[in-house]
């Protein structure tokens, strides 16, 4: 039975002599505490990513990136956050007020919710849902709705065209992504994220068992994260800022947060599905929970680093080319991968 963060907290409390039989209030408090922990953790990670992106990209581009605020500009994300919070929040006159208000939330909330069945480490999982990966795929499919709403509600042609592009891209790349995930699920025999991690401990990392699947997943993931070369979401050279052209202040910050939370989320999924999740060699003397969270973080950071590196190297692919790659190359290959995996699993090889 896999432990969850909740179990661990209850266990720690029982060690210091606090226990609460069946009363519901402390349970709710603990759950709320976990929710806050998750939100803060993701927000901190996102802040770190923005700093890392600017630093790595800076060094790729023979410059230093932020250097003024804090050591090596480490406080830059905080300063940026304060700037965004204190900026004027403008709603265009002709915008659909309610939809305009709710769109950032529709994008932001799913990007946090995907972390619920995410195994950050051994015993560090909010809830080990039996349908974990299916839940993640389903939840992350909600954010294109928010993008479409944002583009529509802004009443701006750039925003509308940008949102249509973004949604077209998200939908076309979700299909190959889910198809490759099925390959992993076939090998594991379970949809639970924790089971997928444990299965990789028994066998080997799935990146070696599913090389084709991994490559398809990687490309689809970059598209889903909306990173260059597949960042039709922003397309700043054509549509100024894509679907969030009209957004400013806090609402813009939500889109920004969601984008990086998405980057974190999909990197985490990739680390879990293909790189053994939190598993890694343990150093004696350090608690397993901390070691496993450390390994997980290292793997996620490596993937994020890769996407930043990619951003520093290549330009954007054109919209029709992105879609034709998605439908004409990725989906057939994903089906092929699924077919081969199915045969191998049925034949008892995997």
């Amino acid at each position, binding site marked *: 039975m896999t432990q969850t963060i909740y179990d661990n907290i209850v266990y720690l409390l029982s060690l210091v002599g606090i226990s609460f039989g069946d009363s519901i209030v402390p349970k709710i408090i603990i759950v709320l505490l976990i929710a806050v922990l998750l939100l803060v953790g993701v927000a901190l990670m996102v802040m770190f990513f923005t700093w890392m992106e600017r630093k790595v990209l800076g060094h790729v581009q023979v410059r230093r990136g932020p250097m003024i605020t804090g050591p090596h500009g480490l406080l830059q994300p905080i300063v940026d956050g304060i700037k965004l919070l204190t900026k004027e929040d403008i709603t265009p006159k002709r915008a659909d007020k309610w939809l305009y208000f709710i769109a950032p939330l529709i994008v932001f909330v799913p990007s946090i919710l995907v972390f619920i069945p995410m195994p950050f480490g051994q015993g560090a999982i909010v809830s080990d849902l039996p349908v974990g990966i299916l839940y993640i795929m389903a939840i992350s499919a909600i954010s294109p709705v928010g993008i479409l709403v944002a583009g529509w509600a802004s009443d701006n042609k750039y925003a509308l065209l940008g949102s249509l592009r973004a949604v077209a891209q998200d939908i076309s790349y979700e299909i190959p992504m889910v198809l490759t995930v099925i390959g992993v699920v076939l090998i594991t025999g379970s949809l639970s994220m924790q089971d997928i991690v444990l299965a990789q401990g028994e066998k080997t990392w799935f990146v070696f068992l599913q090389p084709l699947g991994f490559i398809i997943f990687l490309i689809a993931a970059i598209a889903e994260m909306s990173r260059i070369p597949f960042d039709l979401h922003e397309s700043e050279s054509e549509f100024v800022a894509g679907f969030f052209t009209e957004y400013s202040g806090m609402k813009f910050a939500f889109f920004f947060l969601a984008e990086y939370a998405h980057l974190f989320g999909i990197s985490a999924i990739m680390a879990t599905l293909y790189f053994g999740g939190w598993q890694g060699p343990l150093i004696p003397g350090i608690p397993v929970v901390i070691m496993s969270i450390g390994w997980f973080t290292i793997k996620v950071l490596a993937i994020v680093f890769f996407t930043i590196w990619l951003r520093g190297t*290549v330009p954007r692919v054109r919209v029709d080319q992105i879609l034709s790659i998605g439908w004409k190359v990725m989906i057939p290959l994903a089906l092929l991968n699924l077919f081969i995996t199915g045969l191998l699993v049925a034949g008892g090889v995997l």
Partner: protein
Amino acid sequence: MTETEEFTLNVGPVHPSTHGVLRFVLRMDGETIKDTEMVLGQLHRGLEKIAESRSYLQFVPYTDRLDYISGMTNNYAYTKAVEDLAGITVPRRGEYLRVLVMELGRIVNHMLFTGTLFLDLAASTPIMYCFRDRHNILELFESLSGARITFNYIRPGGVRGDIPEGFIDKTRALLKELPSRIDEYAELLNDNEIIKMRLKGIGMLNPKDAINYGVTGPMLRGSGVSHDIRKDDPYSVYDELDFKVCTRSECDTYARYIIRMDEMRESLHIAEQALDAIERLQGPVSTSYFPRIFKPARGESYSRIEAPKGELGFYIVSDGSEHPYRVKIRSPSFCNLMALPQMVKGLKISDLVAVFGIVDICLGDVDR
């Protein structure tokens, strides 16, 4: 296929990829461009009219503001027209110095072109590399003229000042370094599959249309027409220099981009020869005296030179007074831009950005 409703999309005048204040009114069918209308004149400063109230020498700084990326060539184009009008000959050392700064200016222009083109394609790294190297050339210009963009360096009678101490060594070191830098760009960009996907086969302009539109410079050479005024109608000391005209016949944007890369190398080659000549030759860099107020005889002159962006011409009419009677500027950016609507017809809006980047205009040069 289903028909979608056409709509009008306004791009600019303030937009990330219009390189200034140009406005497009696009008739779009979804993402496909049906028709392009350009609205010019947002940066019109009436330079041609201003010229009529300035003395011949006073107008030189204004030419820096035409195509403010390559001020040196603008200075020279105007200066050449004035010199033709007044019948002034410039010492050969001065001519070589002019060629040196003009060719370095061409490299600066093409570096900026490369950077902004790929920035429009969302690759943010090339522009940083290009600016790093552009900076080194601008430092040289600064040591010559005191300015980095608006030089006012080449003027009737020669150049404004002789080279400072250590200039030859610094330039030689830079000329040694730059080829490896250009190789670096080529390595990063030329064989990148995504760049090929984005640039190959779009923005087609066949040689006949290119000539009819009056397209010049790398744009025309990318359509397979070997036309370079430095070769065809040599001015200054270009007939004594060894260089070749870079031409490609693919007619697409990728060819036009590669031509710029090749031209940077050719310009380095020319600059080296010019630097050798400056070192070898003795004597002044300008005529001993050029009067501040001078009155050429009645007459007219037209000079045309190969500016980095294409043919830059100055037509000056003198009525014998201290001011020009009329100055007409034939700017390469304006003429090249006119071919854009045909080049982007039927393409996607993302291609508009790429094709527009490849035309390489400077709004100061378009609107004057």
